[in-house]
């Protein structure tokens, strides 16, 4: 089929059709309004399920066969087991052994442990990935080896795509650290405990078939019901769903890198001087080294000022828990739990709640939490002088990361990206980013060790920082400083062939990823 390209609102050339499905070009922030109804799976009938509530099947293979596993199906998994996940690879091994072809893997994120998937992409079991592609999978995709076009979405965009029927999940396989035979499940208990299961909500609500895979089966009822058993078709009990030390780290530690600590300290000082750190404020900072350190500086500032933050959205770690337990933070709203202390806190603290992606990030709903956040800390591989951000490709064109919640989070009241001006000679601020994942109008502040750039649209922030001793500089100047040290980089060597598309939070196409030559 001939594929047409049109220019979207950012001037990027994007296809009007992706894998045979019509696609809408990105129109701008809050410009595209979707019409119609949300998707719904078929009506089910209790008569077709065991009266005793016992949905246990002997093996994952039998459950997949019962779900009607066949060519071309969309199989979804969640990433709460992170790099310790043993379930996703197993699904495709079974499919491969059965000679099934052209599946679509729809994970909420992928990790280095999923490199094994390449074998099933190579042998035709999987035709493409819609989700995130890290490391080896990204490299594979960048080199044009995936049979059909990969689709990259944010966490919120993934929920939106499920809910809007853009992606119809045939089988959702949900690895659950604890479950009962009816399929009520949670991530709080068991040898593979991971905290919440908030990324799997859309999967079990909208998939035609839902399989729970657990290594900790308990009698009905399993509480809390992070997964509601009424949506579940079958339950499979295995020896092990994950490798505990790779699911959550025993303990998360903040960075010891003086350069990153400097970035964190500058960011916290910026927030303080801009009046963001105040009684009742809210924030989100991820689990990366710099972000964690920023949280620790926030904690210190609140202590000095004798103030409290009202809520923080997790990625939770022991540092956030400390803040909660010392009384400087009132609520943790947690979509993923990064260390054992945070898992413990989610079990024990009544102010530490598990939430889903629907709550915090989904754009096609009656509001979400992102626009309520006072400050949100993000990362990036590249930023351009228009403040557009790239989080998926590197400057050499290779796709190496997923979008995560980046696009969703950019909607906060103040989105700050602390990044080094260059990494091993690679400048981070460029004339144009390799791939636009989010438009510059949503990115408010870039903090680098050599200066802080405030988006010219944020006159209020510029005004507040007029008297600051922090090195506030135009973004163009930062770009030049970086290039003066590193030299002006050549452009990546890319073909015209599109290997992946990047969707915006509303399902429109914001950019494409090209094959690397």
């Amino acid at each position, binding site marked *: 089929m001939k594929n047409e390209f049109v220019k979207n609102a950012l001037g990027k050339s994007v296809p009007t059709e992706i894998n045979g499905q019509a696609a809408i070009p990105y129109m701008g922030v809050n410009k595209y309004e979707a019409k119609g109804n949300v998707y719904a799976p078929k009506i089910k009938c209790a008569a077709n399920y065991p009266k005793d509530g016992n949905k246990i099947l002997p093996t994952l293979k039998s459950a997949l066969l019962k779900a009607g596993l066949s060519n071309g199906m969309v199989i979804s998994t969640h990433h709460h087991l992170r790099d310790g996940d043993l379930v996703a690879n197993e699904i495709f091994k079974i499919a491969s052994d059965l000679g099934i072809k052209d599946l679509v893997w729809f994970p909420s994120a992928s990790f280095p442990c999923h490199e094994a998937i390449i074998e099933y992409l190579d042998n035709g079991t999987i035709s493409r990935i819609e989700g995130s592609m890290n490391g080896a999978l990204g490299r594979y995709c960048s080199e044009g080896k995936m049979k059909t076009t990969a689709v990259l979405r944010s966490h919120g965009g993934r929920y939106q795509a499920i809910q809007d029927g853009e992606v119809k999940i045939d089988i959702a396989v949900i690895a659950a650290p604890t479950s009962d035979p009816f399929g009520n499940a949670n991530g709080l208990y068991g040898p593979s405990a991971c905290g919440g299961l908030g990324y799997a909500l859309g999967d079990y609500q909208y998939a035609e078939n839902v399989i729970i895979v657990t290594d900790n089966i308990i009698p009905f009822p399993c509480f809390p019901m992070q997964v509601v058993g009424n949506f579940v078709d079958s339950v499979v009990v295995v020896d092990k769903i994950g490798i505990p030390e790779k699911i959550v780290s025993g303990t998360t530690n903040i960075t010891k890198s*003086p350069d990153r600590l*400097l970035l964190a300290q500058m960011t916290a000082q910026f927030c303080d001087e801009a009046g963001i750190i105040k009684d009742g404020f809210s924030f989100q900072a991820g689990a990366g080294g710099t972000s964690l350190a920023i949280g620790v500086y926030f904690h210190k500032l609140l202590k000095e000022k004798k103030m409290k933050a009202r809520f923080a959205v997790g990625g939770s770690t022991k540092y956030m828990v400390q803040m909660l337990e010392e009384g400087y933070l009132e609520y943790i709203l947690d979509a993923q739990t990064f260390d054992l202390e945070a898992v413990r806190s989610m079990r024990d603290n009544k102010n530490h709640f598990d939430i889903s992606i629907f709550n915090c990030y989904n754009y096609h709903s009656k509001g979400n939490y992102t626009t309520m956040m006072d400050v949100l800390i993000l990362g990036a591989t590249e930023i351009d002088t228009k403040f557009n951000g790239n989080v998926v490709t590197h*400057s050499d064109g290779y796709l190496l990361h997923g979008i995560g919640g980046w696009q969703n989070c950019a909607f906060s009241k103040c989105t700050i990206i602390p990044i080094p001006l260059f990494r*091993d*000679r*690679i400048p981070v601020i460029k004339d144009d980013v390799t791939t636009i994942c989010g438009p510059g109008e949503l990115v408010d502040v870039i903090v680098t060790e*050599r200066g802080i750039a405030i988006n010219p649209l944020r006159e209020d922030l510029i005004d507040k920082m007029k008297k600051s001793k922090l090195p506030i500089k135009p973004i163009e100047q930062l770009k030049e400083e970086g290039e003066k040290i590193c*030299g002006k980089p*050549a452009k*990546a060597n890319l073909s015209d062939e599109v290997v992946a598309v990047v969707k915006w939070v509303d399902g429109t196409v914001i950019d494409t990823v090209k094959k690397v030559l």
Partner: protein
Amino acid sequence: MNKIGTSGNTGKGVRSDCFISIELSSKPIGFVIELKSKVKVLYGDSIIALIKDMLNYYKIENANVSVEDSGALPYVIMARLESSIKQVLDSEKEFLPDFLDQNRYSTDRDRFRFSRLYLPGNSPNLMINAGLHKPDGIILDLEDSVAPSKKAEARFLVRNALRNVDFYGCERMVRINQIPQGLEDIKYVVPHNVNLILVPKCESVDQIVELEKEIEKVKKQSGVKNNVWLMPIIESALGVINAYQIAKSSKNIVALAIGLEDYTADLGTKRTEEASESFFARTQIVNACRAADIQPIDSVFSDVGDMDALRESVLNSKSLGFDGMGCIHPRQISVIQESFAPDKSDIDKAKKIVLAFNEAKAKGLGVVSIGSKMIDPPVVKRALRAIEIAIKLDLLSENWIKEEIV
């Protein structure tokens, strides 16, 4: 087989550096350049162009060059290649990176030297951001942090860093090797606006005389006008005994530092937390320096993980009379700066004294007094200094006098 010149570092964990080897050839092979680089897509062409430029500069016509690059900045690549070339070719010619305009400053004899950050002279990844952590000085170290086999290549790297790395106003210091080996280091640093040279294991006036002669020679040859200050490091019993003579031996000496690891070894004892074994040496250094009107500077604190112990150590050092301390990790800088800084009650007292001093000056009075109490000139001097430090460390507004009156 032809001689092969090599320089630099490669392997796991090496960043912002490169390893270069060169072999000259008598056959007409031209330049055969093999480049492995993390940044090949972005900088491969410019790295190869730089290498060709340098080979031409040294009039090399046929050579095999191999580069394993982990994101080295151009000044690093230049240093590595020059060092490699000079192992296979006799040449006095230097291939110098640009001298940044902002690196041409000189420093005052009595500027603050609370913290000085040691940077291993052969580790480029630690250099580029060092100045951002705002120590009073950075030390590019050619001595103990550089392995004997790497001494020669480190000189090129340190020279290029002095020219091309912005240290953002820090005092630019180099620790040379022990005299006499250290004399060889001088021509790599003095022409490139080094502000201060640390002289390790100094124990006699003769060493300073010999060093100054070499510095003067190189200054004349290269037309350097800026002062090159000296900070001898006393690291032996003999050095401690000769401290005052050393302190007085040159007008360019601005401070004496003490190096306790070597000193305690020389005494035949061990460094302890209470530091009673070095009490004599430290007070001797402080007295020698005060008598010679220069700054006494304490040793380094080696546990980079323990900030509380560091703080205690700095306060102890300050109470003995020291004016500064060495840092081996950027994390130590702020603790050292804060601890040497005056506290709130010091600042309040100093403010009163300075205001009284200004008032006396305005009235043309020779005597400063607060109420009925007379203030001696040294007390005024100390107060002025405390205010200066407080302003510098952001503990006091530059316009405090105006604000005070309002």
